[in-house]
């Protein structure tokens, strides 16, 4: 039997209860469940399981995720359908993903086109409300999706609505989005550029999209650019000297 009062040693001291889990702690849980810890590490983790409900929950979540993957693999064989290190194994997956993406973009384009047409028709029926400089309560929303594949010549065009409208914009920064971005909405008037909105940091949502809501009162007719600049993580070693900013064009028509 263990000696009463044995401490958690230095490792245990880093596992202070009540503090959100760090990457180190998460990896400790991963290695605990994979039976890859030393005795003293096991002791520290199990002490934390006993004393810290949040840590315990993370262990259980991780165990459930591992178990779910194992069951999925034994049932459907995800090793066959999703994973493969050899290029030949990856190609069908990429091909399938590309097909799905192409179909998805097509459906999205049709949906967006129909929706804009419907909204344009609806706007003509609504009474005219003069725009003012202040933000009014939003009556309607317009969703606009920006894909990375859109070319410079393909600026999204929107009609300036007659009623206060919240433009819900979503931007697809690509398959490997940065953790956070600085987002700037810039109005272009010839050579002059005016920053209308500057937000930082903005994180991609669970679907990897950056979402920005802008009230129509702040967007008079004209040409705009939305610039997404990836922000380096705090403490991270900069891999490339200059993060590549993504630019999406938007035109608001009268």
């Amino acid at each position: 039997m263990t000696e009463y009062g044995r401490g958690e040693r230095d490792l245990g001291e880093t596992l202070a209860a009540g503090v959100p889990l760090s990457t180190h702690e998460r990896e400790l849980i991963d290695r605990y469940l994979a039976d890859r810890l030393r005795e003293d590490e096991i002791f520290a983790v199990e002490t934390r399981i006993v004393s810290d409900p949040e840590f315990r929950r993370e262990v259980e979540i991780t165990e459930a995720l591992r178990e779910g993957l194992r069951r999925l693999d034994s049932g459907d064989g995800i090793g066959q359908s999703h994973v493969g290190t050899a290029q030949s194994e990856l190609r069908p997956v990429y091909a399938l993903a590309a097909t799905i993406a192409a179909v998805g973009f097509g459906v999205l384009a049709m949906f967006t086109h129909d929706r804009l047409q419907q909204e344009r028709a609806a706007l003509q029926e609504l009474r005219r409300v003069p725009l003012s400089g202040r933000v009014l309560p939003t009556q309607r929303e317009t969703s606009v999706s920006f894909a990375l594949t859109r070319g410079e010549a393909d600026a999204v065009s929107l009609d300036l609505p007659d009623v206060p409208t919240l433009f819900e914009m979503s931007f697809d920064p690509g398959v490997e989005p940065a953790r956070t971005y600085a987002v700037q909405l810039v109005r272009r008037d010839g050579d002059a550029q005016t920053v209308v909105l500057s937000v930082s940091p903005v994180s991609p949502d669970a679907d990897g999209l950056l979402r920005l809501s802008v009230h129509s009162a702040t967007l008079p007719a004209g040409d705009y650019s939305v610039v997404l600049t990836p922000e380096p993580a705090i403490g991270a070693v900069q891999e490339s000297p200059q993060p590549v900013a993504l630019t999406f064009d938007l035109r608001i028509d009268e």
Partner: protein
Amino acid sequence: MPPTGQMADEEQRAAETASRGAALVPAGVDLAGLRAGVLALLRGLCRRNRIDVSLADDLCNETFCVFLERVRHEPLREPDKVAAFLAQTARNLYIAEARKFSRRGTSTGADELIASHADPSLDAVERLRQMGLVAVVRRVLEQMRVPRDREILTRYYLKDEDKSVICKDLGLSDEHFNRVIDRARDRFRALLGPGYTSQTLFSFVFL
């Protein structure tokens, strides 16, 4: 989800443990909370080593018997070390029990093989619960749009490959790897929903 009666029994046992130990330990020591922790630890050990999970309840009670007997003879001087003592005692009792289990010769070492030939008509409730978990994990994988991200997740959690090996193979930075894993875990947690508890999670998954 475990039967209501079972949960009520557990709560009652936790309350009994707390009341028995109340006279022996300082007021700041949450014996009921620690009991929940010890039980979770033991259940996890049993689950992962394919030993009957109901054994965890007995081992948990035994752990607290050892603890209370100990503090009866030797007053508690360092309350912050109680969790460490309980964890170590629980593990030692578990190891002793696992050895007995092994000596009984009831384990063939081919549990996976045996499980793969299970009669699908048996224990339909359990199969439904397992299918629920599989569906959640499948959703997580479907939402990972980059094939390489799925590869990272499965190599790390399914094949237990070392992080450094995966990063080297795929030319990834530590930061990128962590981002993929954290995002997958967040999605898994979100898909499970906010209302789950350890009780519901593991009744959902394993019981």
